[in-house]
C-alpha cells in the first residue's frame, strides 16, 4: 500500500516536471495562452491531489484537463485574437518573422561579380538505389574544394531551415578520392562510398537530375550555405536561365543598431537593415516595410500585432463590412425565428392530430414522421442539396416545377430569395419531428378534467384550444422554443452544406453571402481563404455570437429552472 502511494507521488512528480517543461517549451514557441493554461492546470492538479480538503475535485481532474485545453484555452485564444490582426499576411509572431528575414534563403541575393563555381554531387548508393546521403565537390579553376557535412544552424520540428558547410581544399580533407579520366569518380569516407552522381554541366548525368532536385536539392541542399576560407558565402541557386548554379550569395537583411527618436529622447534600437540599400526596415501596424531605391515603401512581411478594438468598431465604421454584416445579422434572426415558427406550427398541428386517443395507427404515424429527425442531418441536407435543389438535375426543378406545373426552373442556389426558401424548407423538414414529439409529450401532461369542465361549460373546440391547450402547452414548451431558437441561430451545418452561405453578396470585400448567418460568415472568414483569412475579425464576431446565444441560454436556464434542479 505504501509502495503504491510512493509510486503515485513519483508519477505525480514526473508528470509535473514534464508538464512544466512542456509549458516552458510552448512559451518559447510563442503559445502564451496555452502555456499559461497548462501552468494553471498543473497547479490545480497538484493542489487538488496534495490538499485533503479538495478531495471532491480529484474526480474532476480528467474532465478539467479536457476542459482547460479544449474549451478554456480556445476561448482565451479567441478573445485575444479578437484584438489582433491575426490572419493572412499576419500569421507568425514578430520574433519568427524577424528570424525568417535573417535566415530564410528567399531573402538572399547573388552577389554581383561574385564567384561562381562548378560542382559535382556524389551520392551513397543502397544497392542500386541512390540515397539522400551526398557529398559536394566544387571547382574553382584548378583549385578544388570539398564541402564538409553541414551543421544545422536552424531547424524546426526536425526540418532543416538553415545549414552551414565549410569548403575545404581537397588535399586538406580527410576524405579519399578515386579518379578516373581526370574526374573524381568515387569519394570514400571511412567505409562509406559516394559515387559520382550529378553535375549540371555533364549531360550524361541528366538522368539523375530529377532525383537530385527533388530528393537532395529542394529538401536539403538549397538550405545549406557554404563558407570558404575567406568567409564568403555560397549557395546553390537557380539563375535566370533556370540552371542551378553554385554562386556567391549574401543575405538581404541583417540586424544592426540604429538611433531613433522616441518620445523626444534618442534611443539606440536593434533594427533590421537591408544590406543592399543599407536602409533600416520600418515597422507599422504589424507589417514590416522595406524602402526601394527610389524611396517607395513596400511590405516585406507581417506579424501578429495588437489591433485594439478595431475588429469590433469596423463592423460599424467600414461601409464595405457594416452593410453585409447588418444584412447577415438581420437574416440570422429571421432565419432562427422562422425556423422555430415553421417547425413548431407544423409539429404542433401534427401533435394535435396524433394526440386523439381514438386514432388508430398512432404509433406508426409517429414513427414514420419522426424519421427526418432520426436521419443524420448532414446526410439529409446533402440529399436535399444534390438531389432536390440542384438547379440543373435536381428533381424539384426537373420534375415538380417543369413537368408538373410547367413553370420555369427556379435558381435555388443563385437567387437570394429562393436560396433562403431552400434553406428554410430543409430546416423545417429536419426540425418539425422534434417539435411534434415535444408537443405530444406536453399535451399528454395536460389533465383531461380541464377539457371536461370546459365542455360542460359549453366551450367550443376552438375556444378549448386557445384557452386551455395553447397556454398550458406554452408553459412547458416555451423554454424549448427558446432553446430551439438558440440552436438554429447557430445552425451552421444546414446553411453551409446546402448553400455554402451563397449566393455571394455584391459590393463587399468579405466572403459574405445572402443566406449566410453569423456563424457561417465567421467560418468563411476564418477557414475559407478565397480572399484571405481573417482570424481576428472572425474571433470578434464569434464573441458577439457567444453573448447572444449565451444570453439566450442563460434566460432559458432561468425559465426552465435548471439551476434549481442542479442544486438538489
Amino acid at each position: 500500500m505504501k509502495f503504491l502511494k510512493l509510486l503515485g507521488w513519483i508519477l505525480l512528480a514526473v508528470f509535473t516536471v514534464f508538464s512544466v517543461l512542456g509549458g516552458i517549451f510552448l512559451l518559447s514557441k510563442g503559445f502564451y495562452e496555452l502555456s499559461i493554461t497548462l501552468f494553471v492546470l498543473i497547479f490545480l492538479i497538484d493542489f487538488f491531489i496534495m490538499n485533503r480538503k479538495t478531495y471532491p475535485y480529484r474526480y474532476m481532474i480528467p474532465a478539467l484537463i479536457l476542459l482547460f485545453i479544449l474549451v478554456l484555452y480556445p476561448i482565451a485564444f479567441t478573445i485575444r485574437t479578437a484584438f489582433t490582426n491575426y490572419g493572412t499576411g499576419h500569421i507568425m509572431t514578430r520574433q519568427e518573422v524577424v528570424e525568417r528575414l535573417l535566415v530564410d534563403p528567399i531573402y538572399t541575393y547573388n552577389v554581383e561579380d561574385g564567384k561562381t563555381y562548378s560542382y559535382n554531387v556524389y551520392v551513397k548508393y543502397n544497392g542500386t538505389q541512390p540515397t539522400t546521403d551526398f557529398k559536394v565537390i566544387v571547382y574553382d579553376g584548378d583549385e578544388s574544394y570539398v564541402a564538409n557535412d553541414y551543421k544545422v544552424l536552424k531547424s524546426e520540428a526536425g526540418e532543416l531551415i538553415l545549414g552551414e558547410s565549410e569548403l575545404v581544399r581537397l588535399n586538406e580533407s580527410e576524405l579519399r578520392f578515386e579518379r578516373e579520366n581526370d574526374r573524381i569518380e568515387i569519394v570514400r569516407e571511412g567505409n562509406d562510398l559516394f559515387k559520382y552522381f550529378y553535375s549540371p554541366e555533364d549531360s550524361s548525368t541528366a538522368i539523375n537530375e530529377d532525383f537530385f532536385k527533388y530528393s537532395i536539392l529542394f529538401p536539403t541542399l538549397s538550405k545549406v550555405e557554404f563558407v570558404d576560407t575567406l568567409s564568403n558565402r555560397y549557395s546553390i541557386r537557380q539563375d535566370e536561365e533556370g540552371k542551378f548554379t553554385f554562386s556567391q550569395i549574401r543575405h538581404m537583411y541583417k540586424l544592426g543598431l540604429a538611433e531613433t527618436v522616441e518620445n523626444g529622447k534618442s534611443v539606440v534600437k536593434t533594427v533590421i537593415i537591408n544590406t543592399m540599400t543599407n536602409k533600416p526596415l520600418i515597422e507599422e501596424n504589424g507589417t514590416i516595410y522595406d524602402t526601394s531605391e527610389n524611396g517607395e515603401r513596400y511590405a516585406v512581411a507581417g506579424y501578429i500585432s495588437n489591433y485594439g478594438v478595431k475588429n469590433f468598431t469596423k463592423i460599424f465604421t467600414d461601409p464595405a463590412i457594416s452593410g453585409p454584416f447588418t444584412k447577415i445579422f438581420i437574416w440570422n434572426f429571421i432565419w432562427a425565428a422562422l425556423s422555430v415558427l415553421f417547425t413548431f406550427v407544423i409539429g404542433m398541428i401534427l401533435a394535435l392530430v396524433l394526440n386523439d386517443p381514438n386514432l388508430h395507427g398512432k404509433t406508426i404515424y409517429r414513427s414514420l414522421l419522426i424519421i427526418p429527425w432520426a436521419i443524420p442531418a448532414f446526410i439529409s441536407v446533402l440529399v436535399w442539396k444534390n438531389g432536390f435543389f440542384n438547379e440543373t438535375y435536381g428533381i424539384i426543378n426537373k420534375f415538380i416545377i417543369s413537368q408538373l406545373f410547367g413553370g420555369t426552373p427556379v435558381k435555388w442556389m443563385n437567387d437570394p430569395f429562393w436560396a433562403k426558401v431552400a434553406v428554410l424548407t430543409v430546416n423545417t423538414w429536419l426540425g418539425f419531428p422534434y417539435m411534434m414529439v415535444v408537443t405530444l409529450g406536453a399535451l399528454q401532461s395536460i389533465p383531461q378534467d380541464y377539457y371536461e369542465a370546459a365542455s360542460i361549460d359549453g366551450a367550443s373546440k376552438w375556444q378549448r384550444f386557445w384557452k386551455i391547450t395553447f397556454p398550458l402547452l406554452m408553459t412547458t414548451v416555451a423554454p424549448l422554443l427558446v432553446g430551439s431558437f438558440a440552436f438554429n441561430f447557430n445552425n451552421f451545418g444546414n446553411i453551409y452544406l446546402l448553400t455554402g452561405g451563397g449566393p455571394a453578396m455584391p459590393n463587399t470585400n468579405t466572403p459574405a453571402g445572402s443566406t449566410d448567418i453569423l456563424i457561417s460568415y465567421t467560418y468563411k472568414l476564418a477557414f475559407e481563404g478565397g480572399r484571405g483569412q481573417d482570424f481576428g475579425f472572425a474571433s470578434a464576431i464569434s464573441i458577439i455570437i457567444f453573448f447572444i446565444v449565451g444570453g439566450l441560454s442563460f434566460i432559458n436556464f432561468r425559465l426552465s429552472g435548471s439551476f434549481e434542479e442542479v442544486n438538489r
Partner: protein
Amino acid sequence: MAKKRKVLTHIILIVVCIVVLFPIVWVVSTSLRRDNAAFSTKMFSSRLTLQNYRDLLAPEQNGPRLVSDIDALILSAPPHDKITTEKAKQLLTKDVQKFQNYIKETESLKAKIDENINAIRDYFEQNSDQLIATFSKNLDDIITLLNFEKPAQYIDVAAYDLYNNGVDLSAISEIDLTVGQQKWEEMIGGRKSQIEILKGEIDSVNSTLQPLQKSYASYQSQFTNQIGTIKGLLVPQLKEYSKVLNSLLQILESAKNSSAPAEFLPDEETIKSNFTTVLSAIADVRVKTEKYQDLQEISDTVNEFVALYNKVLSQWKNFSYKDRAPYQDFLNTTDAFTTSVASTIKQSVQLLNQLNSTTEKMLELQAQINQYSSNLTRLQNQLDKLNDEVTNAYEEISPALIYLNSEVVKMQLSDIKGRVSSLKLPTQLQLLNIQSKRVFGLVADFASQLPESSKEQKSLRALIKNVDWPGTAKDMFTNYDLFVQSYESYMKELKMYLNEVSMQGAEFMSVSKTGIKVRPKSLEKLTDVVLSTYRSDVVPSMNVMSRKATELSDKLDLSSATKNQLKAIDGAAFRIDQIWQRKADNYLVRWILNSIIVAITVSLITTAVTALAAYPFSRMRFKGRKYGIMGLLLIQMFPAIMYMIAIYTFLSFAGKYIPGFGLSKLSGLIFAYLGGIAYNMYLIKGYYDTIPDSLEEAALIDGATRWQTFVKIVIPLASPILAVIVILTFMSTFNEFILAKIILQDVKQYTYAVGLYTFSTGPFETEWGLFTAAALIGMLPMVALFLLMQRYIVGGLVSGAVKG
C-alpha cells in the same frame, strides 16, 4: 359523420407521411437504379441493380483495375515496389489468370446476348403475323379515335380549301367541289385575293415612300449641318463685333473730353450710309433667323447687336464734337468695321438662303410623305381587317377541316394497313419501320391541328407511341450488329496483347527492379485497348442496344419469356460494362471504419471522464457545486467552430513534434472531439441523483472508501445510463461534419461524413447512384440506433421542461 372525419384524418396523415418521406423513398430508389439518375428523364426506373452498393462496399478488381495492377507489377511501382521478383511473378500470373477469366466471362455474356437476340429474331419470325396484326390493331385504335362527327355545314368549303392545297379528296364521295368553290370564294377566296391586291398596293406605296423618306432624312441631316454652321459662324463673330461697337461708343465718349483737333476727316457721309446699309442687311438676317426655333440663340444675339448698333448710330447722329481727333479715329474704325461686318453678314445671308431652300424642300417632302403614309395606314387597316376575317372564316370551317383531314388520315392509315399486312418480320422490319414513321408523321401532324391539350389530342399522342416499336426493334438489331463488329475486334486485340504481356512481363520485371523502368509496348497497347478502345468503340453501340431492348419490352405486349430474353440482353450488356468500365476508386469502407474508430474512442473516453466528474456533483459538498455544471453548459454555448482556430494551430504545431498526432490524423480529430463533456455531465449527474444515498452510506460504515463505493456501487447501478451516453456520444460523433472537414485533409483519413460530402461535390455531383447508396449505408444504422434510443433522446431533451 365521425367516421367520415376519421377517414379524412387518415388520408391527410398518409399524404403528409408520403410528402415527408419522399426524399427517403427517392434515396432508396435512386441507389438501386441501373441508369444514371441525374440525366434521366424519369424520376423512378424499373432497371434495378445492387451494383452501386457493390462498388462502394466491395469494389471488384475489374478489367481496368487489373491492367493498372499489372502495370504496377511490371514496373515495380507502388503498391508493388517492395516485393521480390518471385512474388511479383506469381502475382502477375494470378492477374493474367483473372484477366482471362474476365475475358471468358465476357465471351459467355456475349454468347448470351447472341442467343437472346437470335431468340428474339426467331420470335419475330414466328409471330410475324401476330405482330403485324398488333400493329394493324393499333392502327385501328387510332382510326377509331379519328371518327369525328360530320359537322352540319361548311364541309364543301373545307373540302375546296384542302383541294386547293393539293390534298387528294377523291375517295370522299359526299362532297360537291363546285358548291364548295363558290362558298369558298365568298368566305375565303375573295378575301384572299383582296389581301393579295392590298399587299401589292402596300408594297407599291412603300416603294414610293421609302425613297422619299430617305431623301427627307438626307435633307434633315443637311439642315442640322447648316444650322450648326450658321450658329458657329454668326454668334461668336457678332459677339466680337459688339465689343467693337462698344469701343466705338467709348471713342465717341472720349472725343467729348479730347482737346486734340482732327486733322483730316474721311468722307463721313459715305461711311454713315454704308453703316446704315449694313444695319438693314442685319435686319434682314434677323428676319430670316427668327423663323427657326433652332436659331433662337442667333436672333437673340442679333437683337442685342442691333440694339447696340442703333445706339451707336443715334449717338453718331447727335454728335457735335466732330472736329476732334477721336472722331477721326471713330470714322476710320467704323469704316473698317463696316466692311468687315458687311462681309460676315453677306456670308450669313448666303447661308441663310441655303437653309431656307433646304427647309422648303423638306416641307414639300413632308407633305408628300404624310399623304403616302396616311394612305399606307388605311391600306394596312384594311389588310388587318381582311386577315381577321379570313382567320374567323377558317375558325368557322375548322370542324369541317378537322373532319375532312381525319377522313384523309384514316384513309391513308388504311392504306398503310394494307401495305403492312403482307410484310414478313424480321427481314422486312425496316419497311415496317418506314410505315410506322409515316403513321407517326401523319397522326402527329393531325394532332397538332386539334385544339391545344384537348382530350383527343392527348389520347392521339398517347396512341402513336404504341406504333413506334418497329423503330425501337430495328435500332436494337442494328446496334447489335455494330456491337458485334466492334466487340470482335476489341476481343481480338485484348487477347493478343494480354498474351504478349503475360509472356514478356516477367523479363521486364527484373529490369524494373534495377531502377530502369521501361513499359513494354504490349502493355502500353493493352492499357490503351482496355481504357480507350472499349469506351470509344464498344460502349456506344452496346449501350444503345441494351437501352432499346428495355424500351422494346416496355412498348410491346410480349410474352413473359420474350420479356425475359430482352431483360437478359440488358443484364448481360450491363455486366460486360461493369467488367470493362473504368471506375473511380472510392474509400467508403475505410471512411466508415475511420468514423467508427473515432466515434467509439471518443464515446468511451468522454463517458469515462464525465462519469467520474459528475460524481462529486451528486454526492459531495464543495465550492462551485451550485453553478458548476450550468456554468459549463453556458461556456459551451461559445460557437464550437471558433475553438477550431486555436485547436487547429495547436494541432498543426503539436503534429510536428508528436508523431502520429496532429492535423489530418484521426488521433488529432479524436482529441478535438473530447471537448464536449458538459451536457453529458448534466445527464449523468441527474441519474446519480436517483440512486439512493443509503446504499453508499451502509458501505461507508462498513469501512469502504468513497472511491470504492463509487466504483463498486454507483458505477454498476448507473451502467444503463452510461451505456446510453456511450451510444448517444457515438451517434453525435459519427454525425459530426465540420470539425472533421477542417482537420482531415487526406482522403484516406476522412470520416464518413466528410467522405459523403465529397460524393456530393465535384466530379461525383451527378453520380447519384453512388451518392445515394453511400448515404443510405450511413443512414440506416443511424436511424436504427435513433429509433432504439428514442426514449432517451427525447427524454434528455425534454427533461426539466416536461415534468408531468
